[in-house]
């Protein structure tokens, strides 16, 4: 990079400017490439390999073909974890979309104290995930939890409910906590997109007599469509793979009612059956890969 140019330029140098630039470029990018190769690419391929073996801790096992996957699809816990993961992603996505977009539209109005409201709405996002889920676990306690007290205080006294205890309320409770923690990301992303929509378009539409609803439908939504898709896909990827939310609140209980794939894979690792545990996480790779490739293409087009 910082090679003195004068003595070399007398002959036709092997290291031309372009070559020197390329060499410097490779040198600077190599450390990150090594990290990616050793800590992401290799483990990824290795996970797929392990999922086709009968590996347990202390014994590499043998190649067993699709036996682990056959086992998974007949295993009640896996099917429940798969259903729960998909449900959790879809329901929280829908809720976060409406709450996030609604609030973003409100915050996009010219009102006083907008910055302050935005700061408050960001708080759940700034809070460490494990802290917020710990707090929600406490909030849902039958005695000493805040939800029952709060409901009683505002006039809905349902008595002493153990929200995370029974099957019927555990999943809704988990969904509420996940939405609370996740909606600020949607809201702020939408708000930023809304602020980039050119005002002239609205003025022109007003002149043409478009109603508020029509302006929303034909100007606002199409302008932020790209951000909506990216945020939805990113959030789905993260929710589907979130371990700590479920681990901290319910550990998948009661009896698998809130079991999700990352927690199931973790239990597989704890019981030392690596082959099956790896299969649990690899089983969703095809679906995950589709989401990842779409969002990657969109994020790169953005530039």
């Amino acid at each position, binding site marked *: 990079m910082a090679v003195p140019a004068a003595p070399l330029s007398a002959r036709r140098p092997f290291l031309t400017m372009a070559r020197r630039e390329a060499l410097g470029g490779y040198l600077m990018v190599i450390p990150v490439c090594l990290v990616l190769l050793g800590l992401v690419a290799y483990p990824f391929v290795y996970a797929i390999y392990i999922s086709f073996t009968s590996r347990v801790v202390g014994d590499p096992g043998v190649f067993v073909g699709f036996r682990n996957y056959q086992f998974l699809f007949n295993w009640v816990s896996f099917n429940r974890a798969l259903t729960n993961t998909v449900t959790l992603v879809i329901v929280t996505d829908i809720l976060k979309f409406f709450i996030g977009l609604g609030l973003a539209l409100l915050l996009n109005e010219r009102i006083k104290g907008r910055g302050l409201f935005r700061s408050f709405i960001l708080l759940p996002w700034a809070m460490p995930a494990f802290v917020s889920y710990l707090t929600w676990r406490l909030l849902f306690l039958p005695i000493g939890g805040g939800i029952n007290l709060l409901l009683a205080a505002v006039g809905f006294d349902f008595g002493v409910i153990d929200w995370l205890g029974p099957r019927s309320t555990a999943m809704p409770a988990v969904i509420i906590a996940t939405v609370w923690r996740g909606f600020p990301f949607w809201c702020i992303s939408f708000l*930023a997109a809304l602020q980039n929509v050119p005002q002239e378009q609205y003025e022109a539409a007003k002149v043409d007599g478009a109603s508020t609803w029509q302006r929303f439908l034909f100007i606002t939504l199409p302008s932020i469509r790209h951000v909506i898709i990216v945020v939805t896909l990113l959030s789905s990827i993260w929710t589907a793979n979130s371990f700590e939310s479920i681990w901290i609140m319910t550990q998948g209980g009661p009896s698998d009612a809130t079991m999700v794939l990352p927690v199931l894979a973790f239990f597989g690792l704890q019981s030392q059956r690596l082959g099956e545990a790896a299969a649990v996480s690899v089983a969703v790779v095809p679906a995950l890969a589709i989401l990842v490739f779409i969002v990657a293409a969109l994020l790169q087009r953005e530039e």
Partner: protein
Amino acid sequence: MATVSRAQVPAPAQEQSEARSRFGIPWRTIAIYVTLLIVCLIVLFPIYWMLTISFKTSRDIYRVPSLFPQAPTLINYETLLLKKNFLVNIRNSFIVASAATFVSVFISALASYSLVRLKYRFRGAIGKIILLAYLTPSSLLFIPLSVLVAQLNLGNSLHGLVIVYMTFATPFSTWLLMGYFKGIPPDLEEQAMVDGATRFGAMMRVLLPLSAPGLVAVGIFTFTGAWNELLLALIFITSEDKRTVPVGLQYLITGDVFLWGPIMAGAVFSALPVMILYFLAQRYMVQGLAAGSVKG
């Protein structure tokens, strides 16, 4: 459809009067404020609950449940710090998060400079791979990583954890920094090079100072990502004296007795540094978030 609704379209003047009633009461604005206030209360309630429980004795938590603390006490903080060795957890988290951030931001800054400013073959492909790596979740990698860590004898050590944290920290900070560097026009560096600066000099004296806010933001994001990480730390740390903050706290809930007071005191302790950082650097953080690229 369009023609039907067109008939109902109010003229702009009418719409103005909709927003403000006959008596000049701005109902629309009031509705917005009320909604936002309710949302703020919902957002703040769990945070408030974390704080009040951290100031209550266990007796008060269970026997006299109330929305407001009756007799605030610091006993939970005392228990946490003196009996539960929480300071050791904080120290471990601090070491791991700082080291992971330092190493990852350093190599990422070099890589993203190279990918954004220099021209060579495969740089487009490398950029794509970085993005794919960033989108690859740790929940997919922790099983093979556990095998690799055991083979390399890196288990139950803080430096092992730092190395493992590179899996998410490096692609993440490289991807973000590429975005920041792209936002800075190359003209300034080219000008400096015309004036006799080397490329390295131009990077050090022009690009880095200009992207300082970006570097700080990426540093904070990476630090908090490592500070908050639970899954990998739970797998790789086995002895009590090496536990990081999330691991230490989650062992408090899986114990026999749920010590909610000390647990929430710990929650306050772990959330405070991160939330203060976010608050101070809010503008840059929101920019990063708005780029649609920061984990929510």
